[in-house]
């Protein structure tokens, strides 16, 4: 590398440590950490002897790093789209602070590292699930579905839904009905969550040529889809309450949150674009924010059931 290239780097901004951390999408990682930790602790509550706290911490760390690695691979591949979209144009690659090759190298290295370390610390079922999650997000979603079909986030949502299943497998070495339903909860929650975002971020996706449902089928259809998804989601969320991870606290929370979620989707369905534009998508934005609370409360309730179990109170 010549001095001239150093000068170019300075002009575009030298990458700081925080830029490399930003490649790992820390905000997405926080959701991954939370749901994976809940899956792991819920499993530990059902297993005699539980799990060593250090192993639990290490497993969640590996899952978080694996999730971050897939985020880096996503940023490497999607740099062209990110450059066009206002929401993502400040990311490390489009802003020129990090080179695409660096992101690719970090993504691949951390992927291998997280999978192997999780396998060594816990078991290879959990490691295989983590490897599949990274592959699913980086290849199936990012490279294939995202630019090809308006169902991109429906199928791609699976990548974000795996962490509680991996956390569960890290303790039990197994895939069970409870862990599949925890996966299903995030999987079915993702479409209404992202479509609500797309309703008020539409122009960004349109500009980048990403075939979001709002772009390909219009906002009316998107509103109908959001409403339709809340019913299977509610059935699954309430059904989860009758498995080994459920209990009265979870079931009460699930019933209340799902009633509110269906009501919010109904409010979105009834609105037309003129009304939405007039109040700057107030209802859609509120629904998007509520969807975050929805997921947090469900997994929080599972955690509460697991935490109360040693005192004979959690679960059925």
């Amino acid at each position: 590398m010549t001095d001239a290239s150093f000068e170019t780097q300075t002009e575009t901004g030298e990458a700081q440590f925080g830029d490399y951390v930003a490649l790992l999408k820390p905000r997405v990682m926080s959701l991954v950490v939370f749901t994976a930790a809940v899956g792991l602790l819920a499993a530990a509550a059902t297993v005699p002897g539980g799990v060593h706290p250090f192993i639990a911490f290490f497993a969640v760390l590996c899952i978080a790093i694996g999730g971050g690695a897939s985020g880096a691979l996503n940023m490497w591949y999607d740099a062209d789209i990110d450059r066009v979209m206002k929401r993502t144009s400040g990311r490390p690659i489009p802003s020129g602070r990090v080179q695409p090759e660096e992101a690719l190298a970090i993504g691949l290295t951390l992927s291998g590292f997280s999978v192997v370390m999780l396998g060594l610390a816990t078991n290879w079922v959990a490691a295989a699930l983590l490897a599949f999650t990274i592959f699913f997000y980086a290849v199936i979603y990012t490279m294939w579905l995202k630019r090809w079909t308006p169902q991109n986030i429906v199928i791609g949502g699976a990548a974000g839904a795996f962490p509680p299943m991996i956390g569960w497998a890290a303790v039990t070495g197994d895939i069970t009905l409870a862990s599949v339903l925890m996966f299903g909860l995030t999987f079915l929650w993702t479409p209404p969550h992202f479509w609500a975002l797309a309703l008020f971020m539409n122009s960004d996706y349109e500009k980048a040529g990403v075939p979001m449902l709002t772009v390909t089928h219009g906002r009316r259809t998107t509103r109908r889809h959001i409403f339709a998804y809340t019913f299977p989601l509610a059935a699954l969320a309430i059904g989860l309450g009758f498995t080994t991870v459920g209990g009265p606290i979870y079931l009460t929370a699930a019933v209340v949150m799902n009633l509110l979620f269906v009501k919010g989707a109904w409010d979105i369905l009834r609105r037309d674009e003129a009304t939405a534009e007039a109040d700057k998508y107030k209802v859609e934005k509120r629904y998007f924010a509520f969807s975050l609370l929805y997921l947090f409360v469900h997994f929080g309730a599972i955690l509460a059931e697991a935490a109360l179990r040693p005192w004979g109170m959690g679960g059925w």
Partner: protein
Amino acid sequence: MAFREPHDLHKRRWSRNLGLGIVLAVFVALVFGLTIVKVTNDPLRLDNGQLKPASALDQGGN
């Protein structure tokens, strides 16, 4: 012994070099901690250090 003024490049990259150093130190600490936990929680051994009989071995991950 004379110390040279740090090159501008080193000043600019201080944050990432420091960050990487901390990450590597944490990694070493984590692997050390994992080793200690694995060694002291060997599922193949009883509390007195004797190997467990095959019939008493648990199935599964940890």
